[in-house]
Structures are given as structure tokens and as C-alpha cells.
């Protein structure tokens, strides 16, 4: 009974403390909100909002006199200035390479494109080559990537036509047949027409040869946004649940420092009952926090956490792991002055190793995914991800059991060290 009294007293004390309530409930939801705000647009039906890339283009192309009607440098500029690309690119003509480079350097443009003098000539003359130079702001990747993709698409059209002509010449030559200029021109024109049609399809986001199929899901998410929010919220929820585990265990150090623990030890109460009561307080606080976060995030972001039995099983594992880890970490802390940096440091580091801050990143290196499983955070993350994907009890059983085992071991070591200290 005394044990429960102590636990209840601790719980009431935590819930009356505004900053603990903020840390337990407000911050995880706030952090998820920030990330949701940052990346939520990617999953929206309107698509990802790509910023307009400012491009300075220098056309040094001088088409040969005999083919002056074909000026591929001019055509490339027209292609990049096409009204369909206006939402992606803002193209300005620069007088020379130096000024275009300077524009990127002083950040008045993100990309400079320099078309070489022999661009048209190289596209038409066998054996001749030319290179378009893209100069980019090194701190940008998205805009320069788009520009490179578009220019490569244009250049591929020209290269394909040239290759088509050279293949015809080679094959005709091997068979001893002379090639007429008209034939070569005809092949190049037909290829160009095909390339333009292909480019249009790709421009509309379709490749007629590719059928896209979504991977099977055990549960269809309400929207793509909820997938993003679910992953981010999982990381934040786990981090702050572990934080609460350590933060509430900190009350033992605090009471020791304030002298109230020593006063308790003078009462006819066993040390194990007092410490046990404080440990139960940690468990109950985490349970309350977890329930509130699961419900609040489901309501705020529409996250479907998965099947109820799986969620219950994972919650039990998480509570034991977070409480055990918290008691373990605090058992090494000497005073409240140390508690801040140590709790913040250990939890941030273990959270990072456990993958809690990289939940939105796919295809992480296998080594990292393995290392994550050295921490209870990593197992918790694995279990909750499976639940989010619709996994049942059988899917989440292993992560839950590992969390229970790890939590029990951490708890046993932490409790042993506390008992030794206060013996």
C-alpha cells in the first residue's frame, strides 16, 4: 500500500509540473507538427512544391554555315524557356560564361548552363564531340538536378539521332550497300519525332513502357500524409517516452538531494518499498503519457497505429524498456547538476543510434539498421513500424519480447545500483 502511495504521490507531482507535462505531451506533438509542416506537402494531392530554379544560360553555339537552319543551342534555350517549365525554371540569357558563373557564385542564380561553340556542329558531324557545362550552387541539389535531367533529355534526343545515323551507316557498310544522304536524314528525323513523343510522355510523368504498381500494404493508410506523420510521430513518441522514463527516475536523485528521501528512510518503511514505489511511479507516468500520445496523434494527424492487440503488446514492451532504461541511466548520475547533460546526452545519442531521428529516411544502410537493434529504441522503432504497416501480434511479438527483456535487464541493474547506494 505504501508503495502505491509513493507511486501515486510521484505521479501527481509530475502531472502538476507544467514543464513535465509540456515535455511529455506537447513537445512530441509539436515536433511532429513541425516535420509534418516541412514535408507534409510531399504527400498532398497537389504534389511536392518544388521551388523555381533561376537559370542563367550562355549560348556560345555557332552552327556551321551549311546547316545554319539547324541551331541546336537556340532550340535548347527554347526548350528550357517553354511555358510548361515556367513553374520550375526561370531562364535568363547571360552574355558570357564568366558572368553566368559569377551569378551562381553570388547566388543570384542557382544554375548556369554554358552551351559550347561547336554544339550544333558536334551533333551533325561524325566523330566530333561537345560538352554542355552546368555550373551549380554547390549547396543545392534539387534545382540543379532538374536542370540536368531536362538538358540530358534534350541532348539524348540529338545523340540518339546521330547514333541512329551512324548505326545505319555501319550496318549498310558491312553489307556493302551505299547509304544515301536522304536515308540518313530520314532516319534522324524519324528518330527525333520518336524522341519528342517520348519526351512529351515523360514530361507528363508517364512512360508508356512502364506500369507502376504500389507495393502491397496490410492496411491502406487514410492518405499518404498519414504515412509520413506516422513515421515521424513514432520517432518523436519513442524519444519522449524514453525521456520521461529517465526524467521521472530523476526524482530519486532530486529527493535525495532535497533530503526528503533520507527523511523517508527514517520512517518504518523498507528501503525496497520506497524505491519500489518510485519505480512504479515511473511505470505509471509512462503508461499515461503513451496513451495520451497515441490518442492525440491519431486525432491530430489521422495516424492509424495498427491492430489493438499489437499496439497493447508493444505498449507493454515500450513501458518496461523506457522505465528500465531510465532507472539504469539515472543510477549513474550523482546529482541534479549532472542529470541535465547526462540525460539529454544519453537520450539524444541513444535515440540517434536507435534510429529515432531518421524514421523518415528509406533504404538506410543495412549496417545502421543492424546497429539500431543494439538499443531498446531500435527494437521499439521496429515494432511500432510493423504495427503501423498493419502487422499483427505475431509480427510484433519479437520486438515486444526483446523490449521486455532489455527493459528488465536495465531495470535490474539500475535498481541494484540504487539499492547499493541507499543501503
Amino acid at each position, binding site marked *: 500500500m505504501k508503495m502505491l502511495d509513493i507511486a501515486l504521490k510521484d505521479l501527481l507531482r509530475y502531472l502538476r509540473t507544467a*514543464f513535465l507535462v*509540456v515535455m511529455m505531451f506537447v513537445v512530441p506533438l509539436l515536433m511532429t507538427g*513541425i516535420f509534418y*509542416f*516541412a514535408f507534409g506537402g510531399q*504527400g498532398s494531392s497537389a504534389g511536392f512544391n518544388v*521551388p523555381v530554379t533561376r537559370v542563367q544560360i550562355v549560348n556560345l553555339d555557332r552552327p556551321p554555315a551549311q546547316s545554319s537552319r539547324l541551331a541546336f543551342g537556340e532550340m535548347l534555350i527554347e526548350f528550357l524557356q517553354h511555358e510548361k517549365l515556367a513553374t520550375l525554371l526561370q531562364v535568363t540569357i547571360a552574355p558570357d560564361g564568366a558572368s553566368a558563373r559569377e551569378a551562381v*557564385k553570388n547566388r543570384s542564380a542557382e544554375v*548556369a548552363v554554358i552551351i559550347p561553340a561547336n*554544339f550544333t556542329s558536334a551533333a551533325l558531324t561524325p566523330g*566530333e564531340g*561537345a*560538352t*554542355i*557545362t*552546368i*555550373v*551549380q*550552387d*554547390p*549547396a543545392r541539389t534539387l*534545382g540543379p538536378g532538374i536542370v*540536368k535531367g531536362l538538358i540530358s533529355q534534350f*541532348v*539524348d534526343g540529338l*545523340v*540518339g539521332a546521330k*547514333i*541512329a545515323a551512324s*548505326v*545505319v551507316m*555501319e*550496318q549498310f557498310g558491312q*553489307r556493302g*550497300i551505299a547509304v544515301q544522304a536522304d536515308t540518313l536524314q530520314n*532516319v534522324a528525323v524519324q528518330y527525333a519525332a520518336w524522341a519528342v513523343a517520348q519526351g512529351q510522355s515523360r514530361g507528363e510523368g508517364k512512360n*508508356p*513502357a*512502364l*506500369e507502376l*504498381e*504500389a*507495393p*502491397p500494404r496490410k492496411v491502406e493508410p487514410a492518405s499518404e500524409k498519414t504515412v509520413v506523420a506516422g513515421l515521424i510521430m513514432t520517432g518523436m513518441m519513442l524519444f519522449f517516452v524514453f525521456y520521461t522514463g529517465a526524467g521521472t527516475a530523476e526524482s530519486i536523485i532530486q529527493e535525495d538531494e532535497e533530503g526528503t528521501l533520507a527523511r523517508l528512510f527514517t520512517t518504518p518503511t523498507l528501503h525496497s518499498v520506497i524505491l519500489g514505489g518510485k519505480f512504479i511511479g515511473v511505470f505509471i507516468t509512462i503508461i499515461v503519457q503513451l496513451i495520451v500520445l497515441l490518442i492525440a496523434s491519431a486525432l491530430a494527424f489521422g495516424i492509424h497505429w495498427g491492430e489493438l492487440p499489437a499496439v497493447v503488446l508493444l505498449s507493454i514492451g515500450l513501458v518496461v524498456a523506457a522505465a528500465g532504461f531510465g532507472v539504469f541511466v539515472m543510477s549513474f548520475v550523482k546529482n*541534479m*547538476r*549532472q542529470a*541535465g*547533460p*547526462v540525460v*539529454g*546526452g544519453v537520450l539524444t*545519442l541513444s535515440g*540517434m543510434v536507435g534510429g529515432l*531521428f531518421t524514421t523518415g529516411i*528509406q*533504404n538506410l*544502410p543495412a*549496417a545502421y539498421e543492424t546497429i539500431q537493434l543494439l538499443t531498446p529504441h531500435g527494437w521499439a522503432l521496429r515494432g511500432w513500424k510493423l504495427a503501423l*504497416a498493419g502487422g499483427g501480434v505475431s509480427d510484433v511479438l519479437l520486438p515486444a519480447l526483446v523490449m521486455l527483456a532489455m527493459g528488465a535487464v536495465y531495470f535490474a541493474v539500475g535498481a541494484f545500483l540504487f539499492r547499493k547506494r541507499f543501503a
Partner: protein
Amino acid sequence: MRIIDLAVKDLRQVVRDRKSALFLVAMPIVFMLFFSLIFGAQGAQRDPRLPVGFVNHDLASSVSTDLFSLLEGSDAIRPVVLDQKQAGKAGELVRDGKLAAALIVPDGFGQVALAARQPKLTLIVAADNPAGQTASNAVDAAVTRLLANVQIAQLSAEAFETSAQLASETERQAYLEQALTLSNAAWRNPPLSVTVEGAGATERDQPSWQNAYNQTSPGTIIQFTIYSLIMCAGVLVSERKSGAMQRLLTTPISRAQIIAGHTLGMLVVVLAQQAVLIAFSYFVLGIQYLRVPLAILLVAGAYALWVVSLGMLIGAVARSDDQVVMWSLIAMFVFSALGGAWFPLEFTGKAFAAIGHLTPSAWAMDGFQNIIMRGLGLSSVLLPVGILLAYAAAFFALAVWRFRFE
């Protein structure tokens, strides 16, 4: 003089509290080392390209072999041949993030392609994540290149048949196959190409502007400098708790002098922390911090001054160590995320990027990246440094205003 006395006292306290000091410097290094080992090893030993499953049901055709070669040549993806057992679970492998996508080549694909009919491939991909989008674009590019080769082969065969006759279907097939081979070879050394350079980077620096840690390293410095808020704010709170502040009331020292003294002491500690992180980034990760040392010193100094000033403000308003930790962690998460320390702001929405760029952490990122990535000079950091100093002055003034002895 009193200001310096206070600063020296703080420094002595920090040096004596080895566990806290160790966390301040060791933790970010462990963090950087950890990610260096994880992602560095990936770059050095493993193929860093996204894995894309390749299920080939068209084993008899050279067209599918050509497609595999084209996928292998991609900078973004690497094809992973799936056996029969794995092929049945391709969708699950994509769903679980083991593969970025899975491409399924149906039986008869090559025959359909060479017969000038529209061939169909199936790509299993989660289009709602960046890895899936990257894989999808790369597969799309490879398939387009393959179709270009097929188109060239068909055009060549059609052109030939206007002048001569291919005796049989077998001969026609051989002609097409030869055209495919020639076309494939020609694409490997195209007459027109596109090259990318980093603006501002000299020829010597070209390889380093694409260093994978150009984002992670300054991001880590930004984040862990803010982490030292716990120490900065904790100084004021612990002095208030121990009664040292009340004792200071009896001395002729002003509130501004107290804040200035603690700011000076903590500034030295934070600068030392940054120096260790910058040295580690330079010598171990190869980040070009020492290209313009004075510029880096200015950015680091101005940013450290802002962080310490914020720490003083938190210390002035916080009533306990717990509150210090709470406000410091909130500040670390918010300023790191909004300032682009965790991910470049260009990847976020317009509103987020605009708001993010109002934060001092974003200006500090700009200052560092102007030197280490953009290869710019001292003048490029003057604006970021000016803004950081203005923020530092504002937070210092707020700290003095809010500071109470009890």
C-alpha cells in the same frame, strides 16, 4: 574585471565537472564518427546506390540483358537480381524498405519490343517516399534509353529494307540484334555530353564540394552548439539555487555585468567545443573549413555568442534544472530542424523554408556552407555574421531584462 572573474570562475567549474564537459565535446564527435562510419563505410566499401530488384522472366532475349546493363550503369540505382523465391516477395521487399523498387520483365518482352509493339514492364514502387521517386526516375531513364536503342534498330532495319531484302525472319532478327549492340556501344561514349561543376570551387576543390558530409558536419556543429544551452543556462540556475546570486547582491555588480561575465565564460567553452568539432571535420572528414579560417572563426564565434545569449535568457527565466533541460532541448530541436541542420531547407515546402531562414541557425548554416561548399571568401560571411550578432545582442538584452537574483 568582475566580468572576467565571473568568466574564469565558470570555466573552472566546467573543467572540474568532467562528466558534463565530456558530454559536450565527446557526444557530437561520437555522433559524427558514428555517421561517418555508417555512411563513410557505405561510400568506401558498399555500393551506395539504391537497390532495385530485377525479376527477369524473359531470359531468352538480349533486350532484357541490355536493360540490366543500362540499370547497372545508373548513378542512382543498382539492380539486384531476385531469384524465384525472392521474386514472389518483391512487393513485400519494397514495402519493408529492403528494396527501393522492383522491376519485373515479363516473358516475351524483347520479342514484343523488337516487333515494334509497345512493350510493358512492371515497376513496384512506393511513390510516396523519396527513395521510391529516385528509383522510379532512374528506371524510367534506363527504360527510355533501351527503347531508344530498340527504335534505332527498327529504323535501321526499315531503312535497309528499302534498299535490300532481309532473307528471313532469322536474318532480320540478327540484323536487329546487331543494331542493338552497335547502338548500345555508341551510347557508352556519346558525342554530346553534360558535365556539372560546383560554382566557386577551384579545380583542386572540385572533388570536395560533393563531400557527403558538407551538410552533416555543419549541421552537427549547429545542433550540438545549441545543446550546450543546458550548460549555459544551468550556470545561472545553479547559482540561484545555491544562493550565490543572493550573495552577489551584496557586491557592487550590475545585472548586465553578471550576464556578461557568464556569457564570456560560456563563450570560451562553446568556442572550444566548436574548435574540436571543426578540427575533427577538417582532418577526419575532409571538410574544407580552413579554406578561409577567419571567416569560419567569425561565423562560429557569432553563432556561439547567440547560443550563449539564448542560454542566458533560458537561465534567467528557468526556475529549475529540469526547466533548463526542457527549454534547451526544445530549442535544439526547433532551431536544428527549422535552420536546415537536419535536412536542407530546399527539400521543405516554401513556407517552412521561408520561416526557417529567419532563424539564426539557418544563417549560421549559410555562413559555414558559403566557405566549405560554395568556395566563397570572407565577404560572403559578413551578412550571416552581422545577423547572428544582431540576434545575440537582442537575446543578451532580453536575458539582462529578465534576469532576477532570486
